């Protein structure tokens, strides 16, 4: 019997040797004719064009051109939109939406449907999917230009569906000259490669009073009729809080506190709200939570409840201290208040189509959370309208359109204050939310508000 077992073993060894021989035949002799087959997706991948990126109206933001038989990625808006679109580079890889959408832009996507491959081949349209963003190219240009090469960022969104209409970061870079400029860009102290709109962490200053007010009113710790007296400073333990520019607001009610941006009042409001109710809203507004944005957003920085002191809480009430947020986060808080308290999920992709024009993916408007009640949102909105009409934000007034806004002047370790302004308009039927920050440039009302105004005018132009 052993003899037959070893014969069997030999037989199988022979089979496997045969298999290795056949494999070498397949991979060396037959390989060229197999891989050259017209339906080999690897071949198609190599020959096909990367899909384009478009704005909401179909204006081109990134496309692949064939120049002298070679593919070249072209960015018609250049540096104005690189904060959103990013780059696709042979050496430096991908960033921005070029990276986020890479599986779609690259033909043909895995796994693929055999029948679709057939249709694409028959139509001769070898190209990746085209992505249409929620971005409005006209507004994007206006937003970027309004920064005038100062360091800063602008976020424009539609509060009713969460669509990001523009997202600008300055200084910026032109993805077409990446190779040439790389050394300069990475060495530049003003970090042009940083997308300030979603990755820049800043103290929010007084724009954060919208958050404080939400927490105070929603937790029932404050009422509209509450009054404060402001002597220009407030002592908490050994620490003295000062009013900006040495203002003394005297006796103010809650509305006055926001309209004139009284730090003394908001320090007291935060303390009265208490740590846990105050900190709770970071999750309600998705400031420290991942909400699945198309691009990676740096989470906001909040002090942990255990270590937050009374002084720290008071400072947080007017957006100083340990709290750091990105411009997108401020746009989200503003957007929730504008949209009757409902926060819509911010998103950048509108629709993705294949080379035949079939819709592959479509992003629907989704509710992210409901951090503010409708009543509270209405109260805060009225205050913001007054802040623009007679308070700190008068530079954002537009004749014929009611604007709601809030200024911020954030002290920071890098010198002159950051100028912030968040706004939405028309106040009673908001279509546009704008968030502007210009680094180390002075007062929010003087520097950022006019920029926001310019963008609002452009956005509301018929």
């Amino acid at each position, binding site marked *: 019997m052993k003899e037959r*077992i070893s014969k*069997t073993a030999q037989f*199988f060894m022979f089979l496997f040797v045969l298999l*290795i021989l056949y*494999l070498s035949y*397949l991979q060396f002799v037959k390989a060229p004719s197999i891989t050259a*087959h017209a339906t080999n997706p690897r071949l198609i991948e190599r020959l096909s064009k990367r899909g384009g990126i478009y704005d909401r109206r179909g204006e081109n933001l990134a496309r692949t051109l064939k120049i002298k038989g070679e593919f070249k990625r072209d960015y018609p808006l250049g540096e104005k939109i690189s904060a959103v679109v990013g780059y696709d580079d042979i050496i430096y890889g991908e960033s921005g939406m070029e990276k986020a959408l890479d599986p779609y832009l690259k033909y043909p996507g895995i796994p693929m449907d*055999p029948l679709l491959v*057939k249709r694409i081949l028959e139509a001769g349209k070898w190209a990746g999917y085209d992505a249409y963003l929620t971005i409005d190219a006209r507004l994007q240009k206006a937003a970027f230009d309004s920064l005038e090469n100062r360091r800063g960022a602008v976020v424009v969104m539609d509060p009713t569906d969460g669509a990001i209409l523009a997202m600008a970061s300055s200084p910026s870079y032109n993805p077409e000259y990446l190779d040439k400029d790389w050394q300069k860009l990475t060495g530049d102290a003003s970090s042009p490669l940083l997308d300030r709109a979603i990755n820049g962490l800043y103290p929010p200053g007084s724009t954060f009073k919208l958050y404080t007010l939400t927490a105070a009113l929603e937790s029932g710790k404050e009422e509209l009729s509450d009054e404060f007296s402001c002597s220009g400073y407030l002592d908490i333990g050994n620490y003295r809080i000062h009013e900006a520019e040495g203002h003394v607001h005297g006796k103010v009610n809650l509305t006055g506190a926001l309209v004139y941006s009284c730090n003394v009042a908001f320090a007291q409001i935060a303390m009265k709200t208490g740590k846990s109710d105050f900190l709770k809203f970071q999750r309600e507004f998705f400031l420290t939570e991942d909400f699945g944005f198309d691009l990676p957003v740096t989470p906001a920085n909040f002090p942990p409840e255990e270590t937050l002191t009374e002084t720290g809480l008071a400072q947080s009430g007017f957006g100083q201290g340990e709290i750091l947020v990105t411009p997108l986060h401020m746009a989200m808080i503003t957007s929730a208040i504008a949209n009757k308290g409902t926060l819509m999920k911010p998103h950048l992709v509108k629709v993705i189509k294949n080379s035949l024009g079939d819709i592959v993916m479509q992003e629907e408007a989704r509710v992210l959370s409901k951090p503010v009640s409708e009543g509270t949102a209405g109260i805060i909105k009225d205050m913001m309208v007054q802040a623009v009409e007679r308070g700190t934000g008068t530079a954002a007034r537009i004749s014929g359109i009611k604007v709601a806004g809030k200024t911020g002047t954030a002290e920071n370790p890098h010198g002159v204050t950051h100028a912030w302004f968040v706004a939405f308009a028309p106040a009673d039927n908001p279509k546009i939310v704008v968030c502007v920050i210009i680094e180390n440039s002075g007062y929010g009302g003087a520097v950022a508000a006019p920029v926001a105004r310019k963008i609002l005018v452009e956005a509301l132009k018929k």
Partner: protein
Amino acid sequence: MLKRIFINRLDEKRLLFAATLILAGGLWLAYKALLDRNTVSPVLPAVILAFSFWLTHFILCIKDCRGDQLILPLVFFLSGIGWIEVFRLEPALMMKQFYWILLGLAVFVSWILLYRDYRWIEEFKYFSLLLAVILQVLVMIFGVEINNARLWFKFGSVYFQPIEVVKILLVFFLAGYLRQYKELLGSVPGQRRTFLNIKYLAPLILMLGASLLILVYQKDMGMALLLFGTFLTLLYIATRRLDYILGGLSFFAAGAFLCSKLFYHVRVRVDMWLNPWQDLYDRGYQITQSLYAIASGGLFGTGLGLGSPGYIPAVHTDFVFASICEELGFLGGAAIILFYIFLIGRAFSSALKAKDEFGQLLGAGLAIILALQSFIIIAGVTRLIPMTGITMPFVSYGGSSLLANFFMCAILMQISDGASR
């Protein structure tokens, strides 16, 4: 005890060490290449896997096991490659495969610790047969259907393919039955050699006919081929009767021909083998995609994680070999085949060394299953023979197959252990 850990099973130690290094390198390459796509890190499970194999080795050392020293490193290597492929092809299934390998290893160790001997299995040959039949009948009644074939039991979110156990049970039965009746089945003195001993052959043929019928009904062609091949080969080994094999083969050929006329799913397999390009976008899609992948590999392959094996549907189960050929090239593919040659060689040599006939037949049966199964799938994926859905031992994704293969190797270890005492 400590001394045993250091001085016992030195070959196994060295080979495990080599395999650990190679697998660590492979995982590192795949991890680097896929950094953007995978969010879950494979490092911790990989360390646990390597540690478990080493632990198994130390247990074998302490227990003074004298079983074959190549089997464990080969199993480590193959299942490690398989796990890296799952991580590379379907990251979401990585943890599941990880748990299955650990479970398989647990079965391997506990079987060896529990039973020093395998000979008692012979007593249970009819029980094995009965159990096999019951499992097959149960899966026909209670099984769930996937891809038009009713082959799985479902427990919660876990699927189990009883045929993987059935194939081993049938080898238990065949080894026992053939050991007992091989003289009667083979040439009997005083009678003519061509005489077919129907009385003793009948139960065998009936048993096999029934299981094959079930398989045809269940549309599992690969398994049918595997079981029939194992049966015929074992019969030849036990009885020396080549005419059984020839008769069986002609019977099988006729049956296959008939099936290809009668059953649509069989005809498709044959048609797509003869000319897959005639129906490129439908029934020929999988095999042509497999051929594209293999052909684009060349000598060295594209590198782990750098090819596009994702174009092949179900690549991580039946077509994992095509992915290996694309990304590791001819060298990688041939290496995998060589590893199977080693493993199967060690299985046959364990059978050869066994002192009792039951052990010889049992070892040979398990060796044949390993050999046939790896041959059928590799030859199918490369279009040397028609493609039949069957797993690649230790490498394909799939729990029941892994458990069964670990179990088979445990018995092979016992046989070789018994032989060297």
